[in-house]
Structure formats: C-alpha cells, structure tokens
C-alpha cells in the first residue's frame, strides 16, 4: 500500500473545523480507507479542534490549524498542529462518569473520546505549534 500523505492548513472558526472534517472525509474516500478508520480519525481531529477553539488562548489573529494525515498499512497517522498558546490536551484529567442525567456535566467528554479512539497519543510544543500526534488502527 502506498504511503500517502496529505496536509492542509485551516483557520480557527467553527466553519474551519467543519471544513477539516469535510476534507478528511474526502481524503478517506480517495484512499479507500475503511469507514471505521476514518470515522475514528475524524472524531479525534474534531475533538482536538473543538478543544483548540474553546480553550486555546489566542496569540495572534493569524492563529491556525494544520492537519496532516498519513495512510499506514494498518491504519492512519494524524499530526495536528495549532498555533495557539501552549496547551497539552493529553495532560488534562478525564472527569468521572456521572451517576445520573441530573448530575451529568454536559461537557468534558472530548478528551475521553480522544484517548479511547487514538493510539500512541503524544503532545509536544515546538515554540510555534502545539503538536499532537496519534494513530488510528484499522
């Protein structure tokens, strides 16, 4: 199988996050990747991007996201970069599960999903970008 790589840069709005997902869908279709693999990759990127928009402290008006996906023999590798202030999403504690709908917090499930769906999840900051790397096994 060819070792295909695709990269694209996006802005930091809700419509940009939707555009990332549309792009990942198209990439997956071009590659003939399994629905489950691409669904998992899309979910992880959606959670990272939502986290960036909601919690990432803006640094400049030119803040942006760069997503790179690489097709592997056994799945997909994702590199997610954002230019907002350093923030490690892998270091945030996962909240406890609620006992009832009345006590449930509507928020806080993104990192739970990210950690469940991603393998080899790593974070670093290179002075410019928050860099999250992960793989999705097919």
């Amino acid at each position: 199988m060819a070792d295909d790589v695709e990269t694209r840069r996006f802005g930091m709005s809700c419509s940009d996050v939707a555009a990332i997902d549309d792009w990942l869908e198209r990439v997956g279709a071009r590659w003939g990747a399994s629905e489950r693999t691409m669904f998992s990759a899309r979910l992880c990127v959606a959670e990272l991007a939502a986290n960036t928009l909601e919690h990432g402290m803006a640094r400049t008006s030119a803040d942006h996201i760069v997503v790179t996906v690489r097709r592997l023999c056994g799945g997909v590798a994702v590199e997610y970069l954002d230019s907002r202030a350093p923030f490690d999403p892998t270091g945030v504690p996962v909240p406890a599960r609620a006992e009832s709908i009345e006590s449930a917090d509507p928020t806080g499930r993104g990192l739970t999903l990210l950690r469940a769906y991603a393998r080899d999840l790593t974070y670093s900051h290179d002075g410019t970008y928050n860099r999250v790397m992960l793989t999705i096994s097919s």
Partner: protein
Amino acid sequence: MEIRISEFGNHGKKVTLVGKLDIAGAESIDLPLATVAGTRQSIVVDMMGVDFIASIGIRHLVMAAKAVARGDGKFLLLNPTPLVTEVLITAGLQELLPIVRSEDEALAVLAG
C-alpha cells in the same frame, strides 16, 4: 445538519436529526432542541440519519436530556448507527441517554 420536530403519538415529541452532529451541526440544533426540551415533554431523538457525532454534539443531547429530566418526561435515542452508538457508549452515556431500536420499543418505554 437537518432537524425536524414532530409529535410522537400522545407521548411527546420526536426530533429527527440528519447529518453530522459536529461543531457546525451542534450549532444548528442548539436553539430548536433546547426549545422543545424546555417543554419537559418526553423526547425521542431519531438518530438514524446522524452519520457522525463528536462531544460537542453529545453536549447538546445531554443538555436536552437534563431539561426533560426536570419534568416527568423521558429522553430516548432512537436507532443510532453502530459507529455513533459506539461513541455514545465510549462517552459513558449508555445509561444516561437510553437507546431504543424501534418506535415500538420507544412507545413501550414511554408508556411504562
């Protein structure tokens, strides 16, 4: 994302969602779902047409379910796809947002 709201027999409302329940989809269902949940009637959310869900979409479902729970109503998810079901279970919601697989099953739960 498309949202349609209709009556569900005499038992409450049916909310039909079609499309991606991502950041953009969540934004588009925010007001109509909150409005119907605010009536505190039972709600059956037809999820069959939802082909993607992320935590921000889950957030809106949980908020609606919490609003319904403040009354006597029930909040059910009807027939989500296997991939969406897996996300809901992974997020720890299988007991908080009960899933039914048919309208008959939903009617039985609401009547029970």
